[in-house]
């Protein structure tokens, strides 16, 4: 043992709640291990970093097809041979969750999907046109300036510029900003006056377009 850190610093998956995502949980666990590493043992210092990096890529939708096997491989080495209890334990926990939630991992890696819409690369944010009252708070708050709108208009998030900082979600007094996964809701293409957007309009966007993604094709 070269490090006095132990696994007590980690939160438990069992306590993570129903809304949590196993990939996101593992990423944060490894992030903690990486940040706590004393830097001496290569499996802890570089291994937890590498695993964290791969998991982060997965949550951001940048996974590569062989990442599951790579993770299993690296976690196995860390679990068995790292010099300290902390990183060995972190790896063991992740390894177990990798095996017990293989389907969820596979969905993340191959389809860039997250069941609970926790992982950033798996959802988009939108302003629900039925709730938005055009107050403009979200527009002012967005660090990316990715929101269009104006006084009395339904605001629209430009998803290609949104980095999911979630600031708008926290400032919206109406809780009108929501996550969308594979099923994309019907929203206006550009800001329109509050109350003017209904089911009959927005011909191009109608019907809840289902964007299909398959495998590792973006």
């Amino acid at each position, binding site marked *: 043992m*070269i490090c006095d850190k132990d696994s007590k610093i980690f939160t438990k998956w069992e306590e993570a709640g129903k809304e949590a995502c196993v990939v996101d949980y593992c990423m944060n666990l490894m*992030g903690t291990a*990486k*940040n*706590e*590493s*004393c*830097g*001496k*043992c*290569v*499996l802890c*210092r*570089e*291994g937890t*970093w*590498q695993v964290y*990096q*791969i998991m982060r*890529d997965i949550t951001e939708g940048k996974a590569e097809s*062989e990442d599951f096997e*790579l993770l299993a*491989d*690296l976690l196995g*080495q860390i679990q*068995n*041979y790292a*010099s300290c209890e902390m990183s060995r334990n972190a790896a063991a926990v992740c390894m177990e969750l990798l095996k017990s939630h293989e389907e969820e991992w596979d969905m993340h890696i191959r389809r860039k999907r997250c069941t609970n819409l926790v992982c950033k690369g798996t959802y988009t944010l939108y302003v629900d046109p039925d709730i938005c009252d055009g107050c403009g708070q979200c527009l002012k708050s967005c660090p990316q300036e990715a929101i269009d709108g104006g006084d009395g208009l339904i605001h629209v998030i430009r998803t290609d510029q949104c980095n999911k900082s979630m600031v708008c979600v926290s400032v919206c007094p109406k809780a009108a900003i929501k996550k969308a996964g594979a099923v994309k809701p019907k929203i206006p293409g550009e800001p329109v006056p509050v109350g003017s957007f209904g089911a009959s309009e927005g011909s191009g966007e109608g019907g809840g377009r289902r964007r299909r993604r398959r495998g590792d094709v973006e």
Partner: protein
Amino acid sequence: MVSRANKLHQVTLGVKVGRNNISERREDRVHANTFTAICTVRCMDIIMSKVRLEIDGYKIEADEGKNLLRAALDAGIYIPHLCYHPDLTPLGNCKLCGVELQGEPNIVQSCETIVKEGMVVNTKSEAANKLRMTALELMLASHPKDCTSCDKYLNCELQALMQYMGVAHSRLREVEKENTKIAVSDRLIKKEMYRCIQCGRCVRVCEEVRGVGVLKINKKDGETYISTKDDVPLIDTECRFCGACVEVCPTGAIQDVKGIFPTEGSRNMTLVPCKYHCPAHTDIPLYVRLVKEGKYSDAVAVIREKLTFPHSLGHICSHVCESGCKRTYINEPIAIREIKKFAVENDKDQTWRQGVLRGEAKGKKVAIVGGGAAGMTAAYYLAKKGYGVEVYERQPVPGGMLSFGIPKYRLPQQIVDEEIEILKEEGIKVHANSNIQSLEELKDKGYDAVLLTVGAGKGKRPPAFDKGWSNAMDAVDFCRKAIEGTLPELGKTVTVYGGGNVGFDCARTAKKLGIKQVFIVCMEAREQMLADQEEISCGLEEGIEILNSRSIVKIEEEGNAISALSLIGIKSFKFTKDGLELEPVEGSEEILKTDTLVFATGQQPDLKASFGIELVRNSFAKVDQSLQTSEKGVFAAGDVVYGTKSVVEAIASGRQAAINIDKYLGGDGNIEETLYERRKPEANIGTVELFSELERIDRFKDAGDATAESLRCLQCDLRTELQKVKYWVDPHFKTVKGVSE
């Protein structure tokens, strides 16, 4: 962690002898007591049990208590390793040296495992290989790929490991680390921390071996990195700049700044620049260390292993050693010459005398023509070798330039005389006032060899000024006459042409003789002057006027005498094969009236073809590689071979001549003596408050100054004591040193 067995090992030995002293690093001559100690160690080695084990099918033997990696490497079985270093506590952190043991479920790190009788080891099992590959891949994930542009290219342990294991930059994500940008280089140590793989060797060597501990594994923003406390530059820490971190770094992360070491020569020599630059290769770091400890007699013994005339050198040595001193890159070089002088002047016990080697009388005679530093040095070593040595000296006393060149205010004659007496104790016969003009004169006297060390005692002027003016002199004659007291009337103004040390000798002598106006005319600008800074500042203090960047273009005559000099300012000058080329400053002509002109523009030997040997460049002795002249059995050394250099160069040349003459006369040519028994120097140097700020002390008032100045030494030689890591391609790993059943 030192294993229990290892501790036992040390306790059992009970003798403070480092592991390397036992056989490999012993000097040939061994003091009786030490010898006993070594015998004891050797006996215990035999008594101490060995264990037998099997590695990859080879049966080997290893000392009990040894770690498995060391045992394998010693036996010629290579196991990849990176964080392990033979001088450091094994940590098992790089995971490269993992092996499988029969009967053990898990891979163990061989560096952390102590050998056991009957152990069966597999270093190449699938699991061990997999762990090794993963570990190396992980290290490479954050390591740059620009190998060819790294200064460590082809001398890099990491690169060698990549080749051995066939691991390239791989399937893993590239990792960019931010904190590697924090460390800054200084004038001695270049840091490219983005090449760091955090093996921690530098941190351990600094802490464990040196006891300095300025290098740390730091942490910032969740990223560990090697740095200093609070990330301050090394110069602001208690770093001793010993270079141990550079020595153990397996990659290009911590390197020597290029240019601080000589590039040619053996590693152990070039790593110690002062010793390298000293023409006699005196063990300078050792005697500086001994002076620091107040062991002046021991220090002198070290000095005398390589040098005759140490006291004289303490006064006037050209100290090229100091120009190589690494401390120059921190503030100023160590005052090595002053340290030497202090040691010699405080050598009460003269312990060096006990170690002097004297050979049996050989029944052969050697004649030495010229009793200067080179001649007397050769005479000394040849006499000790058992030859009958006779020195022919044209002056009333020997010493050459020590007696008749260097002014007495710089080097009192008494010191030279005393040092000559010490040499003469070996039975050298000196024929004074004997000016040998030809080999013929020695022919029938039964000499088996002759050494010519007549020096370069004739002035050399610019060709245009080679004329017999009544009030012009050559520096070499001026200095000799000043010492003899035979100088003619010099007048009110003396001008010296040439700004080297000899020029200052003349000018300062003239000033001390009471001459009102003394000029030095010098082609170099002030900063480029060849004389020592100390000479220049003393000269200026004494009222000498230095006319820099000027050349004499014409000499005004009155009858047979010089009346005035036409000077011209010059921007630059160079010597080409057609002579001197000047770039004059327009309108800078001036007239300098002078009563005496001294040419300090160089010296040459005063040797004529009639002497009976072949000459080169008019008057120099022509010699082959063994310093032998065209005449068989006639050798030459010192200034007569290479022109004026320095006393220490002459001593080195005299030593070489003694070696070659001994060989020529059938001897072994070995004149080396161990006058001081080496012990392994203390590797744990600890810290010294404000070490990098300690300022040079030029002149010592007392022992306190000597200690303080010696303490400034960076002890470059300690680095050579660290063991080298052998690469897998090393011939050592070609064959396994196994044992039979």
